[in-house]
């Protein structure tokens, strides 16, 4: 008879094992804490400040921090702290929603292209190539300029429509290499249908790349929103976002004289993006069944 397996551990579901491994990862935990912190701020915004983030007060512009306006006011006299708190809502929402849309499109198109290959692959990848040949920022700016009245859902759609090719490409590569695996062949020889192979054998094995992509995407979507706001093509005023708060720092007076106006949102963007990347790394390691960490 053969030897007993070297590690007779009790059976655990993939999820409990992954959770266990994830909790051992310190950086990922720090990431979670930071993200939870900002999410908390976003959810409980009305309880954290009594100011209306969109209300002008032209008699109180460019105020320095004081008991009433903790982070001072901006050039239109809106309370910076209120804008920071409410801005987290918009920024996180945009980051999450656009990531979600891009991933959905990427997973669907990527798995179809990777599994079927041939003509299906050709059509999807050529479409991706066409979108990729357009200069990205210019393309986004043009669409936003055409739409003019940009709202949050529209903004998310525009970002999703311009960002899907990269994700689709990466996931197609993952699925292409999975397709050549013996266990896909053995699944087919066990009588699995295409649909079952894609949902039961492809996707669970691609969880790692999908999650890593999702986190990188969410982080870059937040940065993208800030960048677009900075050039004035983000979510328009008076809706507060971290991005258009940093935009204020374009004026030399704010940049040098009022760091309290742009340092908190800038720092928040930095920390959120960093936290999401940490979480992504942690999740990737946690979902790898071969990891012994």
């Amino acid at each position, binding site marked *: 008879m053969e030897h007993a*397996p070297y590690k007779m*551990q009790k059976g655990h579901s993939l999820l409990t094992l992954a959770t266990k491994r994830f909790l051992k990862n310190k950086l990922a935990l720090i990431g979670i804490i930071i993200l939870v912190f900002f999410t908390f701020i976003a959810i409980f915004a009305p309880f954290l400040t009594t100011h209306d983030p969109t209300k002008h007060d032209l008699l109180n512009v460019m105020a320095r921090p004081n008991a009433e306006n903790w982070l001072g006011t901006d050039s239109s006299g809106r309370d910076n702290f209120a804008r920071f708190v409410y801005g987290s809502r918009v920024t996180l929402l945009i980051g999450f929603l656009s990531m979600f849309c891009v991933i959905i499109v990427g997973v669907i198109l990527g798995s179809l292209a990777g599994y079927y290959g*041939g003509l299906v692959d050709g059509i999807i990848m050529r479409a991706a190539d066409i979108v990729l040949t357009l200069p990205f920022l210019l393309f986004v700016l043009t669409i936003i300029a055409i739409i003019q009245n940009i709202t949050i859902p529209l903004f998310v759609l525009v970002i999703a429509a311009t960002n899907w090719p990269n994700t689709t490409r990466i996931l197609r590569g993952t699925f292409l290499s999975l397709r050549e695996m013996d266990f896909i*062949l053995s699944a087919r020889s*066990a009588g699995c249908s295409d649909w079952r192979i894609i949902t039961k054998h492809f996707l669970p094995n691609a969880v790692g790349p999908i999650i890593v992509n999702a986190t990188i995407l969410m982080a870059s979507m937040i940065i993208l929103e800030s960048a677009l706001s900075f050039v004035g093509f983000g979510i328009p005023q008076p809706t507060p976002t971290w991005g258009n708060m940093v935009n204020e720092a374009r004026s030399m007076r704010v940049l040098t004289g009022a760091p309290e106006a742009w340092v908190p949102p800038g720092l928040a963007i930095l920390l959120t993006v960093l936290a999401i990347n940490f979480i992504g790394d942690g999740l990737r390691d946690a979902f790898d*069944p071969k990891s012994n960490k």
Partner: protein
Amino acid sequence: MRGVYMKNEPLLEVNGLKTYITLENKKQAKAVDGVDFVIHKGETTALVGESGSGKSMTSMSIMRLIPEPSGKIVEGSIKLEGKELLKLSEKQMEKVRGNEIGMIFQDPHSSLNPVFTIGMQIAEPLRKHKKMKKKEAYKKAVELLVMAGLPNADQIVKMYPHQLSGGMVQRVVIAIAMSCDPKLIIADEPTTALDVTIQSQILGLMTELKDQTNSAVLMITHDIGVVSEAADKVMVMYGGQIVEKASVKELFRNPKHPYTIGLLASVPRIEVEQERLESIQGTVPPSHAFPKGCRFAPRCKHAIEACTKTVPELIESSNDHEVRCILYRGEETRPCDNHEQRNTN
């Protein structure tokens, strides 16, 4: 004992099977070029040949898992208990795969999905083909593992493939292949990735399970040792064609085709002291550029001019022994002195 099932009814009949693959430069590779054979119930048939001889393509054709669109079954018929597999729709074929024909692959570790437990993977075909409930399928999975000779089956169902050794995983793969009581099991080099002691255990297990269920096994291998250990009948494949067919005893006692003789001579023998092993000169011709005549002729020591003209037919001689070689046309001559010597040794 072997030979007992000879009179059994035919299970799988393959006739004139041709599977061609279109290469990138538009050339056609004749991976399988006119193969016919019959597998009877209760029999283990070995399909032997070197890499590129078309043995795996033959098994993939039976499962209809030829990579499309480059590969295509051009001609022929494959009948499982009289049912023509090549005429089934893809949906109907899914019901045959894993249910009526089970398949065992070479590398057991890579043929299991790394992210699912053993239990889930055995339960999958059961739930699909036998419409079992989850609990029921898990219970059956434990039974199958016990049948496959695994200790602590109730713990193994909860484990992941990478936690088991190669021999254990191959037993799991056999359990999956046997789960729906298939009529035919295709084993594509089932022991190549295993060490020799485990190899004979696995072969023994397969024979035992085959006898229990009265199914048949098509064993694809390049290992003559495996053939002598597990098979009832042998088919030797070369260049997409079957060049010799016989029962195992007959083939080992009386090999006819020069290729088979060379193949047997190249096996190291423990009782003979040898400096160098015998080998067959040259390599298999690429399947898009076969010679016009006999495909083995360029490497054959006994080739005569007639060999390069036309592809010889399979000639049936005594004892259900068929050979595709011009040297046996009409009469029973032995082309190889070498072989005579060995018999007298």
